[in-house]
């Protein structure tokens, strides 16, 4: 499998009146062609900002540094990815203009007014009755239909990479399952590569080939989804999994992670998770742990000095 997108040491810093907020502190990540990569973490860990910066959607107060390559060619990290990638958002209502019909908006993105072409795009996004949907305003559609319309907008740009940022968080469970199935089938039919940003490990587990766990603006664990979810190595990944309600935990306390994600203004020395980690020792506070191969396979990696290195 070849690499489609390589991101190396990406930093995103926002200038604010109360000081510089470092939202992304050195993300290094490869996205393989044709895969669905999950990016997971708590609010404020930098998962959305990473891809928004690459797509050029961060405000002017953000400074973005680092290197990236797309399809082997170096690209500017401050937005050049938007030539190859489309983004779908959490709230499809906010992504659509309320005063134009779906057809009018789709025509602007697709660059054609040909109804047959536009209807075909809606059909690809599994919208039943595309003819009628073209003449509908966003408020006339359900949440699931709006998200499908936004997916059609994304497909109209013929992207090679689709970034889905919490695409189903605002949807009901039944609709969520359908939209996730749609994303999976689009990947197969359109030769798409997908990055799925989500805080929901269950959603990641359902859809993704690999998962990157972000904490405090850095990747702390990366591997095949099945390995990471069944045999998590980094204490943060383990804590996230243990705090999620599961049938076998009924009647027991859930394991809340003590403390908070550190403020983006603070200087972090050593491991960023150490203050909340039950396993933290003196060494954790001195040097920032590097990603190392852990567990049973070489492609399962984690940044924790207490984890046994793969043989």
């Amino acid at each position, binding site marked *: 499998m070849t690499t489609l997108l390589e991101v190396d040491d990406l930093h995103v810093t926002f200038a604010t009146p109360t000081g510089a907020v470092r939202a992304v502190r050195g993300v290094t990540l490869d996205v393989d062609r044709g895969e669905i990569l999950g990016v997971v973490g*708590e609010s404020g860990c930098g998962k959305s900002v990473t891809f928004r910066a690459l797509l050029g959607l961060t405000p002017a107060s953000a400074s973005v540094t680092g290197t990236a390559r797309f399809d082997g060619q170096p690209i500017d990290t401050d937005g050049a990815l938007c030539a190859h990638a489309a983004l779908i958002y959490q709230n499809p209502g906010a992504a659509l203009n309320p005063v134009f019909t779906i057809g009018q908006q789709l025509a602007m993105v697709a660059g054609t007014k040909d109804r047959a072409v536009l209807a075909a795009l809606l059909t690809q996004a599994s919208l039943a009755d595309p003819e009628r949907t073209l003449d509908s305003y966003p408020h006339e559609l359900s949440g699931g239909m709006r998200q499908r319309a936004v997916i059609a907008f994304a497909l109209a740009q013929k992207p090679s990479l689709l970034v889905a940022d919490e695409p189903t968080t605002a949807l009901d469970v039944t*609709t969520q399952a359908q939209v996730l199935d749609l994303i999976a089938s689009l990947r197969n039919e359109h030769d798409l590569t997908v990055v799925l940003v989500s805080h929901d490990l269950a959603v990641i587990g359902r859809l993704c080939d690999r998962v990157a766990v972000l904490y405090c603006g850095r990747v702390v664990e990366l591997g095949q989804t099945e390995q990471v979810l069944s045999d998590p190595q980094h204490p943060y990944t383990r804590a996230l999994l243990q705090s999620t*309600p599961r*049938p076998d935990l009924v009647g027991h306390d*859930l394991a*809340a992670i003590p403390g908070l994600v550190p403020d983006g203004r603070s200087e972090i020395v050593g491991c960023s998770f150490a203050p909340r980690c039950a396993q933290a020792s003196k060494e954790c506070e001195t040097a920032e742990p590097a990603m190392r191969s852990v567990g049973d396979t070489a492609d399962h990696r984690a940044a924790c000095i207490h984890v046994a290195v793969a043989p």
Partner: protein
Amino acid sequence: MNPLVEVRDLQVAYRTRQDGRTRSVRVIDGLDLDVHEGETLAVVGESGSGKSTLAGSIVGLVRPTGGSIRFVGTELLGAKRDVRKTMQRQIQLVFQNPLLSLSPRRRVGFLLDEPLRVHTGLDGDARRARSIELVEQFELSAAILDRFPHELSGGQAQRVVLARALALEPRLMLFDEPTSALDVSVQAGVLNLLQRLKSERYLTYVFITHDLAVARHLADRIAVMRAGEVVELATAAELFTNPEHEYTRALLASSLSV
């Protein structure tokens, strides 16, 4: 033993205007439900199924068009203002977004003091002492009383809202998606806290959620709502192992777990 809440033949219709004409949309149509003292009853279903309208009707935020809601035997619908106020104290509702429940211009201390001022005869010092006791029960420090809501994290804000709801020692707590806006790591702490409070104080919970994993974790019984009706009502264990209604099966099939 009588149930704590008896809902009978509840009807709620909202008026909407469409094309210049007023229409009435039936949101809840003939709903029957009992809530037993001391239980946690989860209400699950999709958006628009009427879950929140049911909670609003019990707490008095929504005016039903028909039916009956009895709380400890007393009819709530059409009750006189003073009866309603006495009952209100015993029924509290917590919403999904804690920051929308807290006035951004008031400090936490004022926000916690308000229900005590309205409903109890305590003087200022006694109310202050009670507020401190409350925040400490919710694993917050007394310093939080001097903060504004925007200075709180999501988990802290939701704890403040819970502390305020419990300040009057209600018998029935209604929760409308109380943890949907929180990260799982924070949600875990809030869910643990709710379990602890319930066993310490013999509270009764009605927990509205679209998250079946959360419902299973907390609930004794689960009511599945669809289009304004309860289509299935069973113990949590039974519902997950042996769902009877087709819609329940569809919901379970689409829910994901780790």
